[in-house]
């Protein structure tokens, strides 16, 4: 649905985006991660046709964004960062304006579409309120509503949950997930849990380049502690246990740390049963057995720092 091919953007001497390639198909939710200034927003703006690339192409549904900008924009729903919206309009006036531009000519169809997004984004209570008087959460939802009003096959969301409270974040994620079945969705975020909770694929971008493009699970496997165990024993001699465990062919390393033994598997495989069996066989009584919860934070830090 969306194909980005060797995209470059230079601002003077700065390479904001430097040869980005990727593809997003319908049914995929692509998480776009990267430190501030990495080129995420610039890439998204080039996909939507707002920023002209220095070189490279973006194809949406097989159409070049530069050559067929209007048909491409018809196929995209875009929610810009910080939701810039005409504040002096009421929610319903604004959505009517978007519907007019999106070419809803039949009044009932237009009204239905507006009712639908108001229900979806829970905007009914503020329909006739001017947008500038709304809270940030509502403004974000209005931005989201305008992006999905025409039920586009491609959705580009620049930090859709930024500034929302935890409940609102949960709601927006639920809506995105519900829509993902038949759409290609690209969303940028700073929130790493959001990626694991929502995305089917992750791209990490740093200094304008893609440095990782894989599923959240395989990205998690890059974490040093993936499937690693932390074990405490009742009476056993830690040095003896460490030596015994290190000799197992499935074990990459074992370290004593603050009175506990940390065990790292080879090839990130699960070693829970193996270690439990070994301990039982050797009569090493376990007092604490823990598999460290792993997050993308360390992976992100290692890749981008």
């Amino acid at each position, binding site marked *: 649905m969306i194909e980005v091919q060797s995209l470059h953007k230079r601002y003077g001497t700065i390479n904001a985006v430097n040869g980005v390639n990727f593809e997003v198909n319908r049914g995929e939710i692509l998480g776009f991660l990267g430190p501030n200034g990495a080129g995420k927003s610039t890439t998204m*703006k080039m996909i939507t046709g707002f920023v002209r690339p220095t070189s490279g192409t973006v194809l949406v549904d097989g159409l070049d964004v530069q050559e067929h900008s209007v048909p491409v*924009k018809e196929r995209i729903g*875009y929610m810009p960062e910080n939701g*810039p919206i*005409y*504040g002096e309009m009421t929610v319903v006036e604004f959505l009517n*304006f978007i519907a*007019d*531009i*999106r070419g809803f000519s039949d009044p009932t169809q237009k009204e239905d579409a507006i009712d639908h997004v108001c229900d979806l984004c829970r905007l009914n209570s503020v329909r006739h309120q001017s947008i500038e008087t709304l809270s940030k959460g509502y403004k974000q939802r209005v931005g989201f509503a305008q992006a999905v009003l025409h039920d586009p096959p491609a959705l580009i969301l620049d930090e859709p949950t930024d500034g929302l409270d935890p409940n609102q974040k949960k709601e927006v994620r639920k809506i995105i997930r519900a829509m993902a079945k038949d759409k290609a969705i690209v969303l940028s975020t700073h929130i790493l849990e959001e990626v694991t909770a929502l995305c089917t694929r992750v791209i990490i971008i740093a200094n304008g380049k893609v440095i990782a493009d894989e599923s959240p699970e395989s990205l998690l496997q890059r974490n040093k502690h993936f499937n690693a165990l932390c074990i405490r024993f009742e009476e056993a001699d830690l040095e003896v246990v460490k030596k015994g465990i290190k000799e197992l062919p499935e074990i990459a390393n074992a370290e004593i740390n603050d009175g506990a033994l940390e065990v790292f598997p080879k090839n990130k495989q699960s070693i829970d049963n193996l270690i439990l069996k070994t301990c039982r066989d050797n009569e090493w009584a376990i007092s604490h057995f823990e598999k460290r919860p792993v997050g993308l934070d360390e992976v992100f830090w290692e890749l981008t720092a």
Partner: protein
Amino acid sequence: MTQVLPIFKREFFGYFRSPVAYVFLIVFLVVSSGLTFYVGQFFDARVASLSTFFTMQPWIYTFFISAVGMRLWAEEKRSGTWELLFTLPVRIREAVIGKYLAGWAFITTGILLTFPLLLTVGYLGDPDWGPIFTGYFGSILMAGSFLAVCSFTSAITKNQVISFVISVVINLCLVFLGWSVLTDLISFLPVSWIDALSNFSYSTHFEGFSRGMVIFEDLAFFLSLSFISLLLTVIILER
């Protein structure tokens, strides 16, 4: 060009969503009439015509239309809404035309609201209506050119004040070039040069309209100035 209408509607009604528009209209009407009656000494002339009213207009427009036009694009850029607008299925030229026409319609509303002046001259005497109607027609046309210049200056910056200052300077120059005081000052230059310079002035081309004449050259001047300014706006926004 199907997208011009929704943009026009949003922009035109947008003026009336803010109290600034009403303040603008009132001040415009007070200043237009005040200058005609007091500075233009309407009653002392003892002539039932609006020529003094029309003479003041290029000067009034320089400031008032720059104030209306400064927000056309600068405000969209400052608030970031142009990012939303240009990611909707809209061609830049459609957006430029839609917003320009809305601003022009707003200013035209202001110009038409000076109708009590018409009633006054009609009541006080027996005016020649021809020059009054061509004067209004020319005035609206000239207002369009002033606004097109503002559209251009507004597109080059996201600061409304900067946009206002640049458009006042450009529009003031285009008024000054045909001002008799200036042409007297540069009378040492060859006449053809002075004529050429004053041909770039709003005042020169508006004079015919206020005397009841619709001359092709004057029409062409205002229309081409508007066209060129809007074209520059499109080019700048497309970059």
